């Protein structure tokens, strides 16, 4: 290894120097200009993550208002129209403006560093994709002020994040709030697609010498599969949205049942995108777990090649399960059985991953620093979310539970307990690399436990209220249904989660100014990003590294027993 050795170059480790390139002080505007015009994958990655966190706060506030309204029966805090807008914007924001950009942001930041490249394959395309995402996000939220409807028409989209037809037709959705929904997602979708092309080209073409495919960090594999899913799924959503736009703007009849259009077709097209989207949101988090878990267990990942196979397998099966979201529309026994079976099948490669992670921890020297806590929490909660997913894939159970709060509980276990916990683990793990300073571990543990307890309080009772029959997307309920206790507990969890987020924000602000200096490799890790300085210079590596195994830094630190001997 020929990169700068750890701690030997104090000037480089100084987080004040921007990107290790220069030490001169920049004014705020010079700094802002530099970030805006940047095509550096690291700056773009950090901007993705920062923008995603801002939208996360907005989406969280929307959820908090909904929980406030549902706290007790017949609460009159929020009117039904506003409630519809809240759950639409919450869902749309969390999927398209939080999950995707933060995960793509991590991919942007990490892929070149981890495969030993100096930048992405197409840096300018990368910047283009980022600004498209920002523009799409602003367009969606601009509907609150820019959308001028007819009398009584809503200002923000209110058709749910999946925008079922015919609710989206001109007849039922007047004004132009739905057009804002279409265009905002369309534009940010173009951003995701350019990013996916970049990921694939970078991973396949820009690896450093010796970085064979089967030596890549797990996260690179996960991102490769995610990029493939984006390339198949997002264009189908784009096509469906183009059709919807034609319906609304030019009087076409794609989805209008009154004029031979089919509302079911929209569901098929949407969920053909929508289910792979779930894996787009979870696979990068699987990648975080697969990187963090070995380092804090002091063991190489268990069953690397099986893990790769499982990831690719998930990628393929994920394309054939979409109609499990549609059991209640009456597809008939053949299609129902097919999609139920395909969904059961996908739990096999997912189960393989869980076992591999447990195998990695088994017999390891576990160290529960904050990243490890989040990752362990991830595994526990993802298993719960996965099991309720199998329940929902069982057709008769789905007929009972579909569109109830049970479903809300299920996918929040997957996307919050899974994806968001993975993201927090990743932030705590890679923050030192990106900034040169550690996040405070004690505050981090506060964040974890507050989020964990708040999360469980909010989402565990939803399974119960769902089984009791509480439907999704209702703005209120009557007192005698037995929902009150469970909804009260759900709402009590909200301030606990908010406290966790506040502690996290305080941690970031404090650590940026006076966090402990991280050095190049604070976790004693094994992947390439820890070989360069923290933060890395703009060119990533002074000399492009050469690797001989899947754990290049292990080989470097243990020249007497390199991994290469066992390959």
């Amino acid at each position, binding site marked *: 290894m020929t990169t700068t050795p750890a701690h030997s170059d104090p000037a480089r480790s100084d987080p004040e120097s921007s990107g290790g390139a220069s030490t001169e002080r920049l004014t705020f505007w010079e700094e802002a200009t530099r970030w805006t015009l940047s095509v550096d994958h690291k700056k773009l990655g950090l901007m993705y993550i920062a923008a995603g966190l801002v939208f996360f706060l907005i989406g969280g506030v929307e959820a908090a208002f909904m929980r406030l309204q549902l706290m007790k029966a017949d609460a009159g805090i929020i009117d039904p129209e506003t409630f519809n807008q809240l759950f639409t914007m919450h869902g749309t924001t969390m999927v398209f403006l939080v999950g995707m950009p933060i995960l793509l942001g991590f991919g942007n930041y990490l892929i070149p560093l981890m495969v030993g490249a100096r930048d992405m394959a197409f840096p300018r395309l990368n910047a283009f994709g980022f600004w498209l995402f920002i523009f799409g996000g602003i367009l969606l939220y601009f509907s609150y002020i820019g959308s001028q409807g007819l009398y009584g028409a809503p200002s923000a989209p209110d058709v749910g994040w999946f925008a079922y037809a015919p609710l989206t037709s001109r007849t039922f959705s007047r004004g132009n709030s739905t057009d804002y929904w279409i265009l905002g997602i369309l534009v940010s979708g173009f951003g995701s697609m350019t990013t996916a092309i970049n990921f694939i080209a970078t991973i396949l*073409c820009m690896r450093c010498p010796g970085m064979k495919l089967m030596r890549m960090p797990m996260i690179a594999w996960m991102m490769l599969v995610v990029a493939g899913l984006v390339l*198949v799924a997002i264009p189908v959503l*784009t096509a469906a949205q183009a*059709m919807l736009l034609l319906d609304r703007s030019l009087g076409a009849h*794609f989805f209008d049942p009154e004029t031979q259009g089919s509302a079911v077709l929209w569901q098929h097209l949407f969920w053909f995108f929508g289910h792979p989207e779930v894996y787009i949101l979870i696979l990068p988090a699987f990648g975080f777990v697969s990187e963090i878990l070995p380092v804090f267990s002091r063991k190489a990942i268990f069953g690397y090649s099986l893990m790769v196979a499982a990831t690719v397998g998930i990628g393929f099966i994920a394309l054939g399960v979409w109609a499990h979201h549609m059991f209640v529309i009456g597809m008939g026994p053949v299609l129902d059985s097919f999609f139920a079976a395909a969904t059961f099948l996908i739990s096999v490669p997912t189960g393989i991953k869980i076992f591999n992670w447990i195998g990695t921890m088994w017999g390891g020297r576990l160290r529960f620093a904050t990243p490890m806590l989040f990752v362990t929490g991830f595994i526990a909660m993802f298993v719960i979310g996965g099991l309720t997913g199998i329940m929902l894939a069982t057709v008769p159970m789905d007929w009972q539970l579909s569109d109830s709060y049970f479903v809300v509980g299920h996918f929040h276990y997957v996307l919050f307990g899974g994806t968001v916990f993975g993201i927090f683990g990743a932030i705590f793990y890679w923050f030192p690399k990106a900034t040169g300073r550690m996040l405070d571990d004690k505050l981090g543990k506060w964040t974890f436990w507050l989020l964990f307890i708040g999360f469980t309080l909010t989402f565990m009772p939803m399974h119960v209220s769902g089984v009791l029959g509480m439907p999704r997307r209702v703005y209120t309920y009557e007192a005698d249904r037995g929902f009150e206790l469970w909804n009260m507990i759900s709402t009590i969890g909200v301030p606990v989660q908010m406290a966790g987020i506040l502690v996290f924000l305080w941690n970031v602000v404090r650590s940026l100014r006076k966090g402990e200096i991280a050095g190049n490799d604070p976790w004693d890790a094994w992947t390439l990003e820890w070989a360069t300085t923290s933060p890395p210079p703009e060119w990533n590596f002074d000399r492009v590294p050469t690797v001989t195994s899947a754990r290049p830094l292990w080989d470097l630190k243990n020249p007497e027993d390199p991994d290469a001997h066992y390959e």
Partner: protein
Amino acid sequence: MRTMSNEASVVMSATTTMPSRAKVGMASLIFMESAFFAAFLVTYLYYIGKSPDGPQPLDCLELGPVLFNSACLIASSVTVVFAVKSLARGAVGAFRLWMVVTILLGLEFLVGTGIEWRGLIEGKGLTLQSNAFGTTYYALVGFHAFHVAIGLLMLFGMLLLSLCGCINPKRDHMRVDIATWYWHFVDVVWIFVFTLVYIIGKVPQGGSL
């Protein structure tokens, strides 16, 4: 720290086999566009024979003109190969000539589609709003024509670059080759669209697949 330069020379040679990012990027773009068109093709298929009222495919779509347009588009896929081959030989003049021929053929396809559409709108009264057939027909053929236009812009851009002397045959012929993949893709999509719309889709009213 230990250097690995001795091993580096060995492994270096292995990395030269990594695919070119331009090829992978273009292939990904084409893959993505295929998914986009697949959605429209499936939608068209789904709505075949589901238009009880209004103009019907059997009465509206004539094979004659569209066969000529299709022949032009397919021929343009051949001429663009000649253009790339000429550039690889260093024959810049021949390259420009074949590019002009390709662009003219592509333009003919667009103009031909325009004429066909005018006939449909004015003669048969078929519009996007008529029925499911009109909706899916104009959307599918229209989005394809839109992609032909994008492809034409790319070809035209390369012709301009060549005219201003910015294309160096030795250095750039691979890039030009990769850019023309898109044109071939647009061509292949048309074969699918043509088969679906003008052959499979012309079932009598009431019949469905």
